[in-house]
């Protein structure tokens, strides 16, 4: 009874705790080989390692260090304080503003594959006791592309951060515009950028963390507007994709072009932060911006843990 199993899995996903979702998310990206379920092959160095070693290494290859993509819930489980996760707008589903042929079917397939309803997860939570609003684009769903609802959810999260005076942390990963939504996709760039501008005017701290790959309309809007810009090692970050550039200039691009390290040396990234240092780095940065809550005149206050 295949359909029944599917139903149960989906049901579990919806009702389970955040930790369960995060666990499924991490495992969901790494399919064990049929012969050796406890080993995982690295697509980069082709060597294999114990699944437990991968997990311990936060899905960076234990041999070569190359990162595997991870799911949004799993990423949040690595940075948020236990039990602090509260998701926003979980039920918002893909809209189809152009009535694009075949789009609904593709969306259904993506939903089934990932258990997600859109390419972004927005949530409130705490990091080291400091309340934050956090956004994760999930590259497994339509390559994290900017759709109307991605733009809408990101904007709503920024608005919550603005009204509650909370720091904002966005993990970007995107293949660019959602082609099937045409001009609506493009306009989300202006919408999200304007929301960041209003947030910034209110004195809010925005930490932008660029993960693999961050390209197109996301790069050209909220992803590059952070007060602090961090990047994951080796992440591809750019506006145009490397293939398009090579076709345009009719030449090969240098090794490492548009990688996080390249951007760091060209002046667009503050720091490259590996996964295992992500949480501690965020805590350090957040604490540098915490103002004493009694000192109300000092502008934006990052309220300390007061549960």
């Amino acid at each position, binding site marked *: 009874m295949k359909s029944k199993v599917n139903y149960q899995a989906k049901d579990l996903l919806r009702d389970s705790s955040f930790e369960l979702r995060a666990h499924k998310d991490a495992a969901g990206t790494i399919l064990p080989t049929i012969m050796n379920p406890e080993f995982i092959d690295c697509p980069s160095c082709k060597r294999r390692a114990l699944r437990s070693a991968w997990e311990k290494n936060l899905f960076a290859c234990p041999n070569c260090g190359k990162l595997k993509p991870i799911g949004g819930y799993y990423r949040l489980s690595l940075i948020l304080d236990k039990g602090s996760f509260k998701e926003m707008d979980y039920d918002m589903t893909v809209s189809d503003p152009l009535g694009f042929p075949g789009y609904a079917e593709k969306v259904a397939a993506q939903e089934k594959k990932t258990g997600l309803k859109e390419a972004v997860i927005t949530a409130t939570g705490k990091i080291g006791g400091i309340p934050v609003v956090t956004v994760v684009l999930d590259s497994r769903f339509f390559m994290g592309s900017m759709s109307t609802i991605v733009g809408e959810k990101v904007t709503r999260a920024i608005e919550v951060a603005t009204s509650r005076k909370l720091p904002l942390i966005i993990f970007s990963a995107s293949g660019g*515009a959602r082609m099937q939504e045409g001009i609506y996709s493009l306009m989300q760039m202006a919408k999200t950028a304007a929301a960041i501008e209003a947030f910034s005017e209110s004195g809010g701290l925005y930490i932008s963390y660029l993960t693999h790959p961050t390209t197109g309309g996301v*790069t050209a809007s909220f992803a590059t507007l952070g007060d602090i810009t961090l990047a994951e090692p080796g992440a591809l970050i750019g506006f145009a994709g490397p293939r398009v550039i090579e076709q345009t200039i009719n030449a090969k691009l240098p090794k490492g072009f548009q990688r996080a390290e390249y951007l760091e040396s060209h002046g667009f990234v503050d720091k490259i932060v590996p996964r295992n240092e992500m949480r501690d780095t965020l805590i350090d940065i957040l604490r540098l911006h915490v103002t004493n809550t009694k000192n109300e005149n000092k502008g934006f206050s990052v309220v300390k843990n007061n549960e």
Partner: protein
Amino acid sequence: MNNNNNLTAEEKVRIARNIDRPHVDDIIKNLFTDFFEQKGDHLFDEDLSIYGGIARYKGMPVTIIGHRKGHNIQDNIKFNFGMPRPEGYRKALRLMKQAEKFGRPIITFVDTPGAYPGKEAEEHGQGEAIAKNLAAMSSLKVPVITVVTGEGNSGGALAISVANRILMLENAVYSVLSPEGFASILWKDSSRKREACDLMKLTAHDLQDAGVTDEVVPEPAGGAHTDPDTLYANLDAVLYKHLQELKLMSSSELVADRRLKFRNIGRTEEAEYITG
């Protein structure tokens, strides 16, 4: 009023790209006086694909910014076919911030195949430059009007288009990507351009329904290049009307109006944020 209703989307794309179509420099010559060109981003370079400066519109100083393409192949190459580099967006931003300082309305003219996908453009932060423009334009304290005159594609168009009013010439098109690029990404087949044109909803009237375009400027039958003077007269009337309306608004009203325009595209009304 609408003389080009019978044209297909693909035919409109062809007219929008016609090499004789009036461009920003022609419009400046015919609708504005005392044009003073401003060059360079004053940081690194001068991008010839973005043309801009100060001029008078019916006596009033305004800042004008637009994509420049040229009417012959030599100029096309010189102006990089209207495809801006980061320096172009930064020049545009410099001019816009200056307009804000001196209280001048800003009028931008959009006509670009898109941002230039070059190696240096990436190294100089194409994405960051576009993003900065989007954010900064959303808080400009002066009226901003965008006129899409030809084809407006991708971030290269949007980077000078976060306006209070978006006007489109009747045969102009505005889209996330060129129809060829769209077909190539979606179907790996750039020859399915016609199909893309029909599906993308990129014409001026389509975009009015989407809440992007505020008013469509009628063109003479067959396109603006067949009778530019009629086009200039039509554009003048529409531009003047919108500028007069915006001049009545305070700076905070202008910012709120502009932000609301873009906020409402794909807006979802839900009271409860936290669901899980």
